[in-house]
């Protein structure tokens, strides 16, 4: 065949151009919403993000001004409670899947974790409502933290398992060959080698539940004042945004925009930290 006269040359070129255009448009469609969301948040919320927003409690209906300090603090408290439940169970579960157990039981556990990861978050709220709120007759920070913690567990299990499986077997063998016990090998060699990956998984899980609203609706419930007792209802940023956004007041709408901007910025920062962590990987491991 002559180089010049490949008979379907033009058609091939057209197909190639078509495919790369389609890919480019798809990429734009992925990025565009992110840009739009940020643009709208900044346009509507930036003017209301001020000192008062971070230091003042919400004002009564009709009184303009005030802030969301109680909701910001509440979100942090809820995340701390969620972390206390989700991190130990999730990390140890991931270690179990990667290092112990039989292949059959593990593939079952893995499947269950994947199913749980797909469960709508409001379902977790209902579950905790039934298990905790009804039994102890009240909404509470504990119930909210538990709901978020339960969402974190399967997420952390899977990411921890994945990064632990990435640790080369040579390190395990080297430690075991020194007469080190199995558990110490896992903690001091395997988990230490995979620590950046494990922390990344934890941060991503925290970022994910930090923005959850539905599971908090009937667990943490929300609170317009300071919470001084974790067995009482507590405010959370997403809940406050929800309440303000569906209200009929312009001032509350502005504050909802500001809250959303603060929340998205916080989650964005966590993702940047994750990026930095995963970039500086040591010795091409995990």
């Amino acid at each position, binding site marked *: 065949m002559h180089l010049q006269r490949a008979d379907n040359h033009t058609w091939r070129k057209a197909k190639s151009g078509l495919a790369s255009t389609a890919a480019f448009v798809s990429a734009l469609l992925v990025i565009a919403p992110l840009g739009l969301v940020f643009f709208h948040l900044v346009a509507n919320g930036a003017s209301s993000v001020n000192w008062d927003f971070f230091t003042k409690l919400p004002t009564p209906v009709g009184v303009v001004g005030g802030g969301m300090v109680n909701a910001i603090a509440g979100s942090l408290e809820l995340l701390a409670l969620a972390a206390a439940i989700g991190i130990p169970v999730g990390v140890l579960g991931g270690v179990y899947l990667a290092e112990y157990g039989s292949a059959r039981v593990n593939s079952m556990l893995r499947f269950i974790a994947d199913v749980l990861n797909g469960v709508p978050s409001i379902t977790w709220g209902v579950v905790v409502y039934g298990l905790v709120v009804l039994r102890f007759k009240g909404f509470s920070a504990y119930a909210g933290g538990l709901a978020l913690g339960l969402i974190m567990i399967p997420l952390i299990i899977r990411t921890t398992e994945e990064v632990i499986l990435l640790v080369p077997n040579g390190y395990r063998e*080297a430690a075991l060959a*020194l007469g080190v016990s199995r558990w110490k090998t896992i903690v001091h060699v395997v988990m230490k080698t995979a*620590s950046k990956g494990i922390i990344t998984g934890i941060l991503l899980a925290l970022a994910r539940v930090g923005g959850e609203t539905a599971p908090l609706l009937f667990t943490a419930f929300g609170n317009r004042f300071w919470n001084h007792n974790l067995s009482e209802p507590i405010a959370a940023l997403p809940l406050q945004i929800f309440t303000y956004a569906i209200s009929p007041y312009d001032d509350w709408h502005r504050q909802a925009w500001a809250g959303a901007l603060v929340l998205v910025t916080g989650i964005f920062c966590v993702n940047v930290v994750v990026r930095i962590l995963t970039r500086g990987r040591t010795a091409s491991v995990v």
Partner: protein
Amino acid sequence: MVNLVMATPERTVIERAERATEPISTSTSESAVPLTFQVKNLSVWYGEKRAIDDVTLDIASNAVTAIIGPSGCGKSTFLRCLNRMHELVPKTRVEGTVLLQGEDLYSSTVDPAIVRRRVGMVFQKSNPFPTMSIGENVIIGLRLNGVRNQKFLNERLEKSLRMAALWDEVKDDQQRLCIARALAVEPEVLLMDEPCSALDPIATAKIEELIHELKAEYTIVTVTHNMQQAGRVSDYTAFFYLGRLIEFGPTTKIFTNPSQRQTEDYITGRFG
């Protein structure tokens, strides 16, 4: 003699002197030498596959024994049976006995971790822990075995690095670092699974020199696919083929006057 069930980290010179001195079996050597390992009728299966077939072999103390043979002949498996590392592979089954200084390695009361403290190992691919400094790497075995005394750790660090000929070197030779790490827990035996196969000739020469020096204090068993290396470093050579021990004896005899046809064919390079 140190008990396998309750071995302590600090062993004494007297204990070393008390090593078993049974005569070596007639099939393997002509003169009586002290033995570190006595392997009797060892067979190993990976699932259905038989990797080692009825191997009987004695390993002399303070000498270098080389295990040679073509790929897949079971030499690595055999080496890993000497410190129970093969147990990490699921569905492994072992039959026969392995005696370390007269004690059964596979007795049900023996903790494999203690076996591995006494029988150290260096792997084909050097594997220093990436999250630790050189010093931390060397003493990690002691630290994770519960040694807290910083002075003792420092002394052992220096001693191990000196023995591995790393103390005066700035550049980190990873494989010698791994040897230093294995030496830090003061084993009696050092198993080496193709320690030089990933190294350049200069680094290989250094490791070989090191093996020569180490045999004054340690019993060394090394697996190699490099016959010239086996000839240079070892006192005894065992030739494995298809899971079986074909011939075992002093290295000079194996290389100059092998008694089995298969050994001769392998040594002369007719197959490999």
